[in-house]
Structures are given as C-alpha cells and as structure tokens.
C-alpha cells in the first residue's frame, strides 16, 4: 500500500486541524482554544459558571481587559464617577481575581482595547485559535490565527473546558490584486468588498485575504482589514504570516523570545495555503478599482466612493432594496442624489479596535497638522501604549492644536457604553466599524471611513476626498 498524496490544504485548514481534539458523529469538531480574552461584558458567562459551581479550567490561557465601559475623560487613579459603569469595571476585577485570571485593568499602563492589546503584548500569534465575547475578535486573524467572536454561553464553555464545539465553516478567498493608490487604505478595501458582496455576503464562511495589495499592507492595516470581516458576515478572516508578521512579533512582552522565537517562526512560516488548495468561493478585486470610501446608510454595505452621490430609491428596480434605501436615507437625514461631498457633519471620532493603532493616528495627524477642525471631535487611542507612543511623537499636540479632544483609551464612542455618545440627530464622521441605527447613541448618524478621511472631514466640516485637500 502506498500513502495517499497529501491533499493541498489552506491556511485555515492547517490551523483548524492542529486544534481538533475529536469530531463527533454529527461532524462537529471539539477545538482546543489557545487564547481567550474577557472584558466587562463577559459577566454573564462568569454568572453561568457560578450558578453551576464550575471552576475556570485553564485560567492561565484567559486574559481580562477593561475596555468596553472605561471612561476616557478620567485621570489615572481617580474614582469612576458613574456608579453603574464603576460596577461593570469592578465586576470584571472581581471575576478575574476570583478565578486567577491576569487582568489589564483600568489603571494598568498596558490597558486598551482588547484587539489592540492582544497583538501589542504578543498574546496574538500565528497558528493559534483565539476567541473573545466580541465580534471584532476577527481582528487577530491578521497574524494567521483563527480568531472569532463568541456569545456568553460559549464564553462560559471556554472558561469551563478551554474548548469549543464548532462546525467547520466554508472558505472564501478574497484576493486584491495590484497596488492601492495613494490615499486608499485597508478600510477602503473592506468597505468596498462589503458594499459589493453585502453585509451578509461572507456569512457561513471564513475569509483568507490574499494578493499583492494585501501582502503590501502593514500589520496595523491587516488588523483593520480582518477586524471588518464580521461586517461582511464572516466570523473570521485571516492573512498568511510573512516577514511583516515576524518583524511585528519579535520581542513582544508575552510572546516567545530567543531560540523559542526562532523555532516558532519556522512553524509560523509554514502556515500558508498550499498551491492547488480548494476554496468554496474565490473573489477577486483589483486594487486600482478601490477609492476612498464612506458609508451613507445604516449598514456597512451601504458604502460608496467619496466622489459619488447618495443613491435615489426612486430609480431602484428592486422594490425591497428601494424601501430599505429610503428608510436608511430618512434615518440619516440625506437627500436622494445628494453629492457625498456636500454632506455636512457635526463631529468626528477617531478611535476603536478598527482604526486607532499608531499608524491610524499618524495618518489622521498628517492631515490635521497645521489645520483647524471645523467641528468638535474625540481622539481615543487604541491602547494606553499607543497613547504614550503618540505623545512621544507629538501627535497629541497636532490633535489638540486642531481643536480635537485627546482622550484615554477604550471602546468609547464606537459603541457608546461608557457615555461617550453622539447626540440624537447629530452626524459623525467616524473611524469605527458600525453605522447601525443608534450604535453611537440613540438617533446618532454615523458615516464610516478611514482615519485620514475623518481628519479631512474635520478640516472642512463636510465629507471630503482627502486626496483633494
């Protein structure tokens, strides 16, 4: 008998297979979880464990991070003013403390948004399975890890067993060929593919991002791209590790060092999709077709290049789509056919797990340098370490001189849980990930775009093509 030739496999297959403990009669895999992050919102899962009197199986593989509710206007050491928010943060302290879980808490100099801190600390590595009770966990896939968001029941399951039952998803490859034009970013790649395929276009699939344009992206940009996978319906998105990945990973505090790093790096470099591996779906986009893009509606799929006009439901053929567009325009307070560059904004927000890493702040600061913002706005760095780095580079002075507020790190105005909200009816140009109704506050109107585009909008007070500024 001869050994059958090894089937070519994808990056996703390689990582999945290395984590499969067993498969049940229904084809479900029991997967080992290498890393688990919890935040203030994870309290439901800890409550479930307590109800059943179950211990945390592997506390050393779970890390707590305070981000969703943390105030951004408070000085270190000061008490948190709002008792309900204080309670959420104290609850996380208690739950992690009681279970022996390491915590990056409110006043930790390494605190920040979970999806920024994980990579920064070296907890995020190629070849791992990483989960967190947050849909933007897809971010970590930028390193060639399988990373996905889970609900509270699954969080409890991971805490109790360090495993999860999952059915292998379908696989889609999204190839971006050629080079991105100046002023075009990972955010624009994401908004473009989501507009084309729909907010549920990649539902049931994992995405591998490939092609020249992806390989040319920095780690920060890959994190932005993978972060937005869920906005197109994919629970996770991956980029194969390469030299850019290895360079980022070297000397991270909680990652491998010395000979152990070299050994890990050899394995990480093997995590690429084999030639001839099969995908359920292949989508190709030419980089040259991608322009700076903004959303006009209440779903990330409602996005257009900045030089276009708001759609007119009256000329749409599909009745249901027309009704939906009409509903979006009503909520957003826009006129059919209005030029996007004529849309006047009330404020800006630069922050979130999508676009608040150091490179994002540099891009926004480059536009704002020597200019004044016409509207108010907040800048909330992705982590306290990003904040410190930005301050070392003098970026905070540019934001302050432009008239924007320089805040502490947290999820802040992306989700409004900490009280940083957009007022009802106000229009915000935002570097975040969701333009859902009420996401930034009840009645808030959100336009998603890249950091440089938000900075450009701040300068003119309108949605603006940063390339023309």
């Amino acid at each position: 008998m001869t050994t059958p030739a090894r089937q070519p496999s994808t990056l996703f297959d390689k990582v999945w297979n290395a984590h499969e403990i067993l498969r049940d009669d229904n084809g479900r895999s029991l997967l080992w979880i290498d890393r688990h992050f919890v935040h203030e919102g994870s309290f439901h899962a800890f409550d479930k464990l307590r109800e059943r009197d179950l211990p945390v199986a592997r506390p050393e593989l779970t890390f707590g991070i305070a981000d969703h509710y943390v105030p951004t206007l408070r000085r270190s050491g000061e008490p948190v003013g709002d008792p309900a928010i204080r309670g959420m943060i104290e609850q996380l302290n208690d739950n992690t403390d009681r279970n022996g879980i390491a915590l990056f808490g409110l006043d930790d100099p390494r605190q920040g948004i979970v999806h920024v801190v994980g990579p920064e600390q070296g907890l995020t590595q190629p070849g791992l399975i990483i989960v967190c009770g947050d849909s933007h966990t897809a971010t970590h896939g930028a390193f060639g890890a399988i990373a996905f968001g889970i609900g509270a029941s699954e969080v409890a399951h991971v805490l109790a067993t360090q495993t999860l039952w999952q059915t292998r998803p379908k696989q889609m490859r999204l190839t971006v060929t050629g080079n991105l034009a100046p002023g075009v970013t990972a955010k624009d790649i994401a908004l473009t593919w989501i507009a084309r395929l729909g907010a549920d276009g990649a539902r049931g699939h994992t995405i591998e991002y490939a092609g020249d344009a992806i390989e040319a992206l920095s780690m920060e940009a890959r994190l932005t791209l993978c972060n937005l996978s869920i906005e197109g319906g994919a629970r996770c998105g991956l980029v194969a590790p390469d030299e850019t990945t290895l360079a980022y990973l070297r000397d991270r505090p909680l990652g491998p060092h010395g000979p152990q790093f070299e050994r890990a790096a050899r394995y990480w470099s093997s995590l690429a999709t084999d030639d001839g591996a099969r995908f359920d779906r292949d989508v190709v986009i030419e980089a040259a077709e991608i322009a700076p893009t903004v959303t006009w509606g209440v779903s990330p799929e409602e996005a257009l290049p900045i030089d276009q006009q708001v759609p007119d439901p009256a000329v749409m053929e599909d009745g249901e789509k027309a009704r939906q567009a009409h509903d979006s325009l009503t909520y957003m307070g826009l006129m059919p056919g209005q030029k996007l560059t004529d849309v006047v904004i009330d404020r800006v927000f630069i922050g979130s797990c999508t676009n608040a890493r150091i490179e994002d702040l540099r891009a926004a600061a480059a536009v704002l340098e020597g200019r004044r913002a016409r509207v108010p706005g907040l800048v909330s760095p992705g982590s306290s370490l990003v904040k410190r780095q930005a301050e070392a580079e003098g970026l905070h002075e540019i934001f302050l001189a432009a008239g924007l507020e320089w805040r502490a790190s947290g999820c802040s105005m992306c989700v409004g849980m900490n009280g940083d909200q957009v007022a009802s009816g106000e229009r915000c140009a935002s570097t975040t990930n969701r333009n859902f109704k009420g996401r930034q506050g009840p009645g808030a109107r959100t336009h998603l775009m890249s950091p440089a585009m938000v900075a450009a909008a701040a300068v003119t007070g309108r949605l603006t093509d940063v390339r023309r500024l």
Partner: protein
Amino acid sequence: MQPLTRFAAPACPLPLANLDTDQIVPARFMKQPRSAGYGQFLLHDLRYDAEGRARADFILNHPEAEGARSLVTRRNFGAGSSREAAVYALVDFGFRCVVAPSFGDIFSANAVNNGLLPATVEEADLELLFDYLCDRPMPLEVDLERCRLRAGEREFPFAVNPVWRTKLINGWDDIGMTQRYRAAIDRFAAKRLRDFPWVGPGQPVPSNEA
C-alpha cells in the same frame, strides 16, 4: 435547556432587513443582570419613542403580541455584535423561533445555546408568510422534527443546521456533554504544549509592579 419539538402560537411579522443586535438590544441596557428580564429591552428604540411611549403601530405593541412565540423577519437578522443579550431579549419576551432568509452566524449559535430556533426560509416563501401574517400576529405552527412551518392551509419548509436541530430537540447543553471528554482534552493539551512549546503565553507582571 427546555427541549423544543413542535408548537403552535402567534407569530409576529417584522418585515425589516439587517436588524442587527445593536437594534435588538441597545448597548445601554446591557449592564443589567439577566434576572432583570431582557424582554423589556427587545427592539427598544423601534418599540418606544424618544419619550419612552410605546409606538402603537409597532408589531410588538400589538395586543396579541404578548402570546407570540415566533418572529418572522427579513435577511441578515442578528448581524453585528456578538452580544448574547440580543437572544436573551427575544427569549425573555417569549420567542422560541425566529424565521428569516438568513441570520448572523454568531447570533444563530447564541440562539441555539438558549433554546431559540433560527429557522431559515426561502425568500419567496418568506413573502408568502408575510402575505399571510399581513400586519398582525397570526397563528403559526413550528414543527422542528419535520422542519416545517404551517401557516393556515399552507406549509413551508425551513432549514436549520442538523447538529443544532438535534441539540434543540433534546435541550442539550454543551458544557455537560464536553465534560465527558475530559481525559481526551487533557491529553490533547499536554501534547499541544509539547509539540508547540511557545503557545503557552507569558503571564503579565501585575501593573503595580510593571
């Protein structure tokens, strides 16, 4: 978890697409413990106006919505945030089934973990269901064993992942099931650390010492 096999009860029509979990339960209510009952927060900002008055024309405020067990809605229901609170809101309101042409992946998994059936129907059948429901709660029979919906004289098939179907019918809970494999998990964990020694993370120095 309570097993779900077959039931007949009113279904509410909600013909909107992309009802994301931020709309199903707005973030500002998520500080509440589950014991507060999340049904009161379900679709809050569609259900109540800015002054907190119930909108009379919204389906959940219909007098017969109280006994409803199914919600019939459009594509991409439950997209976005992984908040399981969205499922708590539906379940605490009384729903056991959501019928739609597609669901957010994380939402579906959360639903099944709470005994809520995400039933996927064809777009054409959905329109017929809306015709039947019109704009009020109407009786709908949900049969999970046969994967069929009965609306008046008509029957419609629905799809659900077979693993989830078994789980819902039996009311199984994953943690209990997984604990039976404890020895295999422990063996796997030891081997993983042996083969990939770097995957065990460093532990951060507590911040007061950092």
